[in-house]
């Protein structure tokens, strides 16, 4: 028995070779993608840690009065997911600034513990000479050291708020440029300022990134007013890879399906060719299950050797690809990571899957009675069970019905999804009866223009079609994945573009990045930025938080508004900001729907609302709107103040806020004088001269080095979009690679198919030649057969792509009328080429074969 397997294996080298190649290709992709993904993950994690420091949260206060006590620190340490903390103490953060002699800029004092996590902070990393201070030591910033001609080891007198001076030894130099900083040993500083156990801020390292949200919540619960830097920027960067994973896995699965389908057809083909041999085995006493086992053995042999080849090739190629990929993705180069368990598991899964797939042809061939196998000269067409035909029709019809029904009501996104999937399944089940219809249709169309001998091709194609059905499905799969993937990627890109242009009405945003009722930039900082050359800047002031007092419950859209009970009726939370609407309007025009935006009107307790605000809350032009400061989120001290403003204008939109932001805009006079809000949350700006952009970015980043601005972030639309485009391109490449691979599978299968079917029909083609068919003519006939099959498959793929694509987009985006037409047309134009290529080599050898030999050899 085993011997027989080997004999078959060797006897059909070419065919087996194809099958192994197909499996190996799939496995190579599987292996490469796992290895590269693991390596990329490692590299990007490393890159992120290098760039941002290896800590996950920054927790603390920004005022001297607020602090964490020793017991507070212990509480945070006790949270199970907290691995490590590094405490810092700022004794004079917002009061009693301390000046050294000869320096006009005040010194910022920081107490720091000498622990490894502390060194992850950007500021500490800047101690480029010397070391962290011990008790009695200090680290000073470079400019002051230079100015005073100080060196490490020198002793200096340092002033403290209590007017005492202390003598300390310099232990290191902090390389910062335009700020003055003095670093001390934490415990020493606490003692010296008589604030034992106090810390202002700490870095937190977590055991597991996934617990971030949970830890934040626990800290918030215990310290409601604490500020937490979630380091969203880092998460965003991680997301890049995180988002890549499902894409890669999804494509891997489709590739595996493609290769399994290829395997099935190749096995089927080789079984068909060996029918007589297999029948002989049966006649000589081989049992059905022996035959079955024979085929399974071969399948295991093929899939295992293919997988091993794939493993070798995949690991090898990964080593080759890794460096260029890392460079391309701008990641640090790390040694390759081979996730062996994952790879071996997926290889085993792949082998199992492919072997299972081969059960189908194995079972079929073992069921054929021996005599039938002998008699069957012509390949029998596998009659599909009529049940499947009806099921497929049912799927398609119900899908179309669902969609039409959905269109007639308020469309449900889920229904679109279901309908799209139903249609796709239906078509795949229907391939074996739709494909012949399509081939007929296409040849009928072409009969109008082509020479009459092509009738032969169409008929031959129809006769041989049952062999190519699965391969046409593989091609369809490639087309569908390609098109649908492409349209989803396009959709994401469009959305991103739209979103970004809403978030960025101007090119740059300088975000103070402070929390709700925490002061942003001072007006001085704003002025210093706005007066840089080629600047067009607008401030977005911090907002005041108010609850409405006279909301008319009958006019509102309840489901879109969060309401809370107050004074026996329901009210909602709104924000009030001061803004120079007139100037903004001149630069960034928005629609004034009704009323006016004049400063003079706003100053007299006037307020402008947005269209959405009016729609949601029911307030109209001319209405008075009564407000009361929110107790928890209010600015400054004292009891909450009340005010009633009159709506003087309605605009759409306010350029610096999302549409659904419940925003009241008034003059800064009111917000400043009455509510004491004079800081700026965000600075929006454009640089009018593009050559000046680099310089201005540099200058602003320089300013941000000031520790009081350490949280502020400068972002730009171009940069954000660029990041997205980078990801988009990666995904596009991946998609392209997967689609090409699946298309290659169908090509390999068709090539194998044609080779075998032409071999069977070589006498037929020799007759054509003998009867006066020219070489080119016969070649054309054979190529046309391939073209017909893949064009039909391509056409079907196009239909499904358009239908499924539109439905998936509808499921994401609500409207159905977004059809991926262009991509589909490309695929339709491309699919004949696959048939052409697949048939070319076998066709060429057929027409160049000796006519006389092929005529005399028995056609069977």
């Amino acid at each position: 028995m085993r011997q027989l397997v080997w004999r078959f294996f060797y006897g059909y080298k070419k065919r087996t070779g194809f099958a192994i190649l197909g499996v190996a290709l799939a496995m190579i992709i599987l292996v490469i993608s796992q290895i590269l993904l693991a390596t990329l993950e490692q590299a990007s994690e490393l890159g992120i840690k290098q760039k941002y420091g290896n800590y996950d949260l920054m927790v603390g206060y920004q005022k001297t009065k607020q602090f964490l006590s020793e017991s507070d620190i212990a509480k945070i340490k006790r949270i199970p997911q907290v691995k490590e903390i590094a405490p810092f103490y700022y004794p004079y953060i917002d009061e009693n600034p301390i000046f050294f002699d000869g320096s006009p800029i005040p010194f910022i004092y920081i107490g720091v513990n000498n622990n490894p996590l502390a060194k992850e902070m950007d500021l500490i990393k800047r101690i480029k000479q010397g070391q962290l201070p011990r008790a009695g030591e200090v680290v000073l910033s470079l400019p002051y050291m230079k100015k005073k001609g100080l060196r490490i080891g020198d002793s200096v007198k340092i002033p403290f708020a209590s007017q005492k001076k202390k003598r300390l030894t310099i232990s290191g130099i902090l390389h910062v440029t335009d700020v003055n900083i003095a670093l001390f040993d934490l415990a020493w500083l606490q003692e010296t300022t008589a604030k034992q156990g106090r810390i202002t801020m700490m870095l937190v390292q977590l055991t597991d990134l996934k617990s971030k949200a949970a830890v934040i919540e626990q800290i918030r619960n215990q310290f409601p007013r604490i500020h937490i830097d979630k380091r969203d920027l880092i998460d965003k960067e991680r997301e890049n890879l995180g988002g890549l994973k499902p894409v890669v896995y999804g494509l891997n699965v489709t590739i595996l399906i493609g290769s399994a389908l290829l395997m099935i057809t190749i096995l089927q083909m080789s079984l068909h060719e060996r029918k007589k041999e297999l029948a002989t085995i049966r006649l000589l006493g081989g049992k059905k299950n022996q035959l079955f086992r024979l085929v399974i053995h071969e399948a295991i042999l093929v899939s295992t050797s293919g997988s091993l080849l794939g493993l070798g090739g995949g690991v090898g190629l990964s080593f080759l690809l890794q460096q260029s990929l890392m460079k391309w993705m701008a990641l640090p180069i790390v040694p390759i990571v081979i996730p062996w368990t994952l790879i071996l598991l997926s290889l085993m899964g792949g082998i199992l899957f492919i072997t299972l797939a081969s059960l189908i042809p194995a079972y079929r061939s073992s069921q054929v009675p021996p005599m039938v196998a002998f008699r069957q000269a012509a390949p029998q067409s596998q009659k599909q069970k009529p049940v499947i035909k009806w099921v497929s029709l049912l799927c398609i019809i119900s899908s179309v019905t669902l969609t039409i029904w959905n269109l007639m009501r308020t469309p449900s996104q889920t229904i679109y999804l279901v309908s799209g999937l139903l249609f796709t399944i239906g078509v795949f089940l229907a391939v074996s009866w739709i494909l012949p219809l399509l081939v007929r249709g296409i040849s009928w169309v072409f009969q109008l223009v082509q020479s009459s001998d092509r009738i032969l091709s169409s008929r031959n194609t129809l006769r041989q079609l049952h062999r190519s059905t699965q391969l046409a499905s593989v091609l369809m799969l490639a087309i569908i994945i390609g098109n649908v993937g492409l349209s989803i990627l396009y959709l994401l890109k469009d959305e991103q573009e739209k979103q970004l242009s809403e978030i960025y009405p101007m090119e740059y945003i300088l975000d103070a990045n402070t929390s709700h009722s925490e002061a942003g930039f001072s007006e001085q900082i704003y002025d210093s930025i706005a007066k840089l050359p080629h600047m067009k800047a607008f401030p977005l002031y911090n907002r005041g938080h108010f609850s409405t007092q006279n909301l008319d419950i009958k006019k509102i859209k309840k489901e879109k508004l969060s309401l809370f009970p107050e004074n026996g009726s329901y009210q909602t939370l709104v924000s009030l900001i001061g803004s120079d609407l007139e100037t903004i309007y001149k630069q960034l025009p928005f629609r004034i729907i009704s009323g006016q935006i004049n400063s003079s009107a706003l100053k007299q307790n006037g307020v402008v609302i947005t269209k959405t605000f009016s729609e949601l809350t029911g307030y109209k032009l001319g209405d008075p709107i009564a407000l009361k400061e929110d107790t928890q989120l209010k600015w400054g001290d004292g009891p909450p103040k009340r005010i009633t403003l009159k709506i003087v204008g309605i605009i759409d939109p306010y350029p610096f806020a999302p549409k659904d932001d419940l925003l009241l805009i008034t003059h800064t006079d009111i917000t400043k004088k009455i509510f004491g809000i004079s800081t700026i949350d965000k600075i929006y700006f454009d640089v009018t001269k593009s050559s000046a952009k680099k310089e201005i970015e540099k200058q602003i980043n320089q300013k941000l080095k000031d520790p009081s601005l350490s949280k502020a972030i400068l972002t730009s639309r171009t940069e954000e979009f660029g990041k997205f485009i980078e990801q988009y391109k990666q995904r596009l490449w991946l998609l392209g690679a997967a689609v090409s691979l699946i298309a290659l599978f169908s090509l390999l299968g068709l090539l194998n198919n044609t080779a075998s079917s032409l071999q069977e029909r070589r006498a037929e083609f020799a007759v054509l030649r003998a009867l006066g068919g020219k070489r080119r003519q016969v070649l054309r006939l054979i190529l046309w057969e391939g073209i017909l099959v893949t064009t039909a498959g391509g056409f079907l793929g196009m239909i499904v792509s358009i239908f499924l694509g539109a439905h998936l987009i509808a499921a994401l985006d609500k409207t159905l009328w977004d059809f991926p037409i262009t991509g589909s047309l490309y695929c339709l134009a491309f699919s004949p080429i696959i048939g052409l290529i697949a048939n070319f080599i076998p066709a060429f050898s057929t027409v160049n074969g000796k006519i006389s030999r092929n005529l005399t050899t028995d056609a069977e």
Partner: protein
Amino acid sequence: MNAVIQTISLNKTYGKGINQFHALKDIQLSIYEGEFVAIMGTSGSGKSTLLHLLSGLDQPTTGEVLFNGKALHRLNDSQLTELRRDQIGFIFQFFHLIPVLSAEENVTLPAMLAGKTNQQLTVKARQLLQFMGIGQLAKSLPSQMSGGQQQRVAIARSLINDPKLILADEPTGSLDSKTSKEILTILQRFCAERNHSLAMVTHDPHVAAYADRVIFLQDGRIVYEHTFTSDHPQANASFLMKVVEEIGGSIS
């Protein structure tokens, strides 16, 4: 009389070195307009090889084939193809009909390959099929016909372009003797009427007896040649049987 086809010391060897096989040796043969030549010989004596050389399907190792005085080796592949298409008709032992084409379409195939399709051609195909006695099967597929019916279609196919020469390789080889006789009579009558030449390979003396002339091949050589004087197939057949016995070697 004009020779439609003439060979000049034709030799054909297959293979190389120790595998070399001399399939045809120094063949001198002319077939004249309207003549019916039967080619007899044991299996493997080179009969099919000879027909392939005559039609240009294969090239001789040395020697020449002249068709209407034109040397075949001077023609390129495309010209040879056209020659076969327009001037030569083929009939094979296993019929070699195209399975996906109906009887009528099979008959018009050579014309179809020439790019000709018109109503007249279809009419002509119908007439030929009628003449072969299977007019009612015009729309049938080969798989729906018996061997004899298929061979009649094949004969009609060989005649559609009014070829000068018809080459038939054991056309009755897969048919029973009654069907063979019917088919042969039709073929002979048709060729005689239209002045087509016919070269037919057979190892059946009863079939060869219909010919004007018989040649015997043995080990690639023409070993015997006879022109019948009698028109009586029965007499010719018994004569041929004696010759076969004399030459020795069982035929088939």
